[in-house]
């Protein structure tokens, strides 16, 4: 379907598709198997200027927005949902800076991020605080013109590989949901360490690590926004980044559908290609319907955000839920269509199924997303005078 992308967005799509086909496709199985971080691909993406598609020209980006990011992530995820995360998760970690950073902080960090020279990670989750983000225990104590961080963050995507981290920690436990703040912490700061790389079911080419802060001292100038705004920063960040996760899911689903359809044309049983059987046709049609619907929703939300819409939490959550549920259903069906071959590691769909699962879990589980949607609906209904 024609989404009337601008010429620049068309270029982004073409470039991402070329990188995916020429550079990612030959190595995706190997990096998944070895759980290796795709530094070679990072370099290619950087040279292609894809790291800056959502960052302003004044900071070295190409001045696009969330939709541009979604297009790039979707195209890359079509070939590997794990490798695409080096970009998607960097964007997640960069949004706090874009939305709440001071001019000085933006000038200092964004150019290298836009150039793909430094990767970024966002750190909120802890062992006791997943869906219940308010339960975070990590602290940031003001001390003169520094903050001292203590605590542990869990399951941080790009953890250990990124050089820049946007971290949410409690500055004043007594103020509850207004007691957290967001900070920029650089890798190499004394007192900032990493745990082991997690061994995961899927997105294995993406690095997931624990972050450990032990009396880690950072300049007070690394505070993002104002003290107490930590959870606002997180919520606004997620509003902007959810389309990116959704785009990753759409990409994974599309890649799986392409494989399944192509296979169904070649595989002959009972004297015919299996795509001539209605049972298979109906499966493929349903997969295609869901993907197109998911893509439309993602693009609409992305366009709304880029158009300046601030009240987008509900729709942004919808896009994430629908796209990730779609990715899971489509990849499972793709494995089914490939039958025995779908179960074998030599064929790419089992990996796509393993990669799809996380999209239903991270950046807010789909259960939390539904809570967000419902509570928005309640607010809207409460506001109506009938």
């Amino acid at each position, binding site marked *: 379907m024609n989404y009337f992308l601008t010429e620049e967005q068309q270029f982004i799509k073409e470039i991402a598709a070329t990188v995916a086909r020429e550079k990612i496709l*030959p*190595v995706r199985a*190997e990096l998944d198997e070895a759980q290796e971080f795709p530094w070679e691909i990072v370099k290619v993406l950087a040279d292609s200027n894809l790291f800056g598609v959502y960052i302003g020209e004044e900071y070295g980006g190409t001045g696009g927005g969330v939709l541009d990011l979604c297009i790039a992530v979707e195209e890359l995820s079509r070939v590997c949902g794990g490798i695409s995360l080096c970009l998607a998760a960097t964007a997640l970690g960069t949004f706090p800076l874009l939305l709440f950073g001071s001019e000085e902080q933006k000038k200092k960090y964004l150019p290298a991020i836009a150039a793909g020279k430094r990767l970024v990670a966002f750190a909120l989750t802890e062992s006791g605080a997943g869906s219940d983000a308010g339960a975070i225990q990590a602290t940031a104590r003001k001390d003169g013109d520094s903050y001292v961080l203590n605590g542990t963050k869990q399951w941080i995507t790009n953890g250990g590989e990124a050089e820049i981290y946007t971290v949410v920690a409690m500055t004043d436990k007594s103020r509850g949901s207004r007691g957290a703040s967001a900070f920029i912490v650089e890798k190499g700061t004394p007192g900032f360490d990493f745990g082991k790389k997690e061994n995961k079911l899927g997105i294995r080419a993406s690095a997931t690590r624990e972050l450990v802060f032990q009396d880690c001292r950072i300049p007070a100038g690394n505070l993002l926004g104002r003290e107490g705004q930590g959870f606002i920063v997180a919520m606004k960040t997620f509003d902007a980044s959810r389309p990116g996760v959704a785009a990753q899911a759409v990409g994974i689903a599309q890649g799986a559908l392409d494989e399944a359809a192509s296979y169904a044309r070649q*595989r002959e049983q009972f004297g015919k290609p299996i795509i001539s059987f209605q049972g298979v046709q109906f499966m493929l049609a349903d997969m295609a319907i869901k993907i197109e619907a998911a893509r439309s929703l993602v693009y609409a939300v992305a366009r709304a955000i880029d158009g300046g819409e601030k009240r987008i939490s509900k729709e942004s959550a919808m896009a994430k839920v629908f796209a990730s549920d779609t990715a899971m259903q489509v990849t499972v069906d793709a494995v089914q269509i490939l039958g025995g071959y779908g179960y074998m590691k030599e064929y790419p769909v089992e990996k796509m199924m393993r990669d799809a699962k996380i999209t239903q879990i991270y950046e807010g589980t789909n259960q939390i997303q539904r809570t967000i949607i419902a509570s928005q609906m309640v607010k809207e209904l409460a506001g109506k005078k009938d």
Partner: protein
Amino acid sequence: MARLEVVEEKCVGCGACLKACPYDALSIESSIVQVNDRCTLCGACVDSCPYDALVLRKDGAVPSAPPGYRGVMVVAEQKRGTVQNVSFELLGAGRRLAEDAGGALTAVLIGHDVAPQARRLIAFGADRVLVAQSKALEGFNDEAYARILARIIREQKPEIVIAGATCIGRALIPRVAVELGTGLTADCTGLQIQEETRHLAQTRPAFGGNIMATILCARHRPQMATVRPKVMKASAPDEGRAGEIVEIPCAEEELSTRARVLKSVEETAGTVNIADADVIVSGGRGMRGAEQFALLSELAKALGAAVGASRSAVDAGWVPYAYQVGQTGKTVQPKLYIACGISGAIQHLVGMQSADTIVAINKDPDAPIFKVATFGIVGDLFEIVPRLTREIQRRRKAGR
């Protein structure tokens, strides 16, 4: 000027020609074919029309050749003073052409201290050998060889000149053709004198070997063609054959050259060069790793073959790029190509589908490679390949 004409009365707008055009130059408007700017006058659409509605109009009839040219000339190639086999193959083809077209078969040999080699050229069919010698011509250099050969051709006026499509040939012959302002067809797989017109019909593959084209050079002489090694057949040598050897003196100015060869380096002595190999054993993604390629090396050794690879294996770092067969690698035309664990993606096929015999070993019965294979084995290559190697060795010991 020529143009592609649509005979509107005959055109029904069926669109068969649209699919035949490699350049996307045709479209249908109001049920009539329109030709746009992309047309390169290649003529592929003309044959595709079931209604003869497309005509490639050239001005005038097929012209006849300028007079005064007669005979066939073979440009022999020597390296380090030894005539290369391709020259004998060319003499075999040249003899056939000379008999058909009329005139003598002449060989030209350029080098230093190569006169003794001239006898071999006569044994393989040359009526005359022209030898141009000088220390300065010992090793190939583009400018001097081209200048001298062009001069010899202008003096001798052969109707046809053929040479090897080798590394030297590719550097030398195009220069000569342009100096003479005549036509050249490279990598010919077929050379035939046309019955009615008496022109040389030069047949060669195009579009990566997906189609064959027959080329004519009617208005100019000589008609020049290069042929790859191992395409033509040498005649059986006749040591007693009589022939003339003529020394061609070269003037000092003819020997000058700006580019110089500082040294010639031989590489990987011992392993067969894949482009020349008669037999190639090739591995793809199914090989799984670099160590496993040793299995193929052993099979290759047993067969006297070269080892090749698909792009997957090269990209994965299991073998160097020099082994790569395919669209972005080498195009090969061996007598036997054995593809192990190669799926047969089109990008690989375009590099090897002209092989005489193709054997495919793959555990996926639906692998596209089986569509082009002469013989296919669906099985585990890690079982089949070692067995193959052992059986070859066993049969050789048993004297088969």
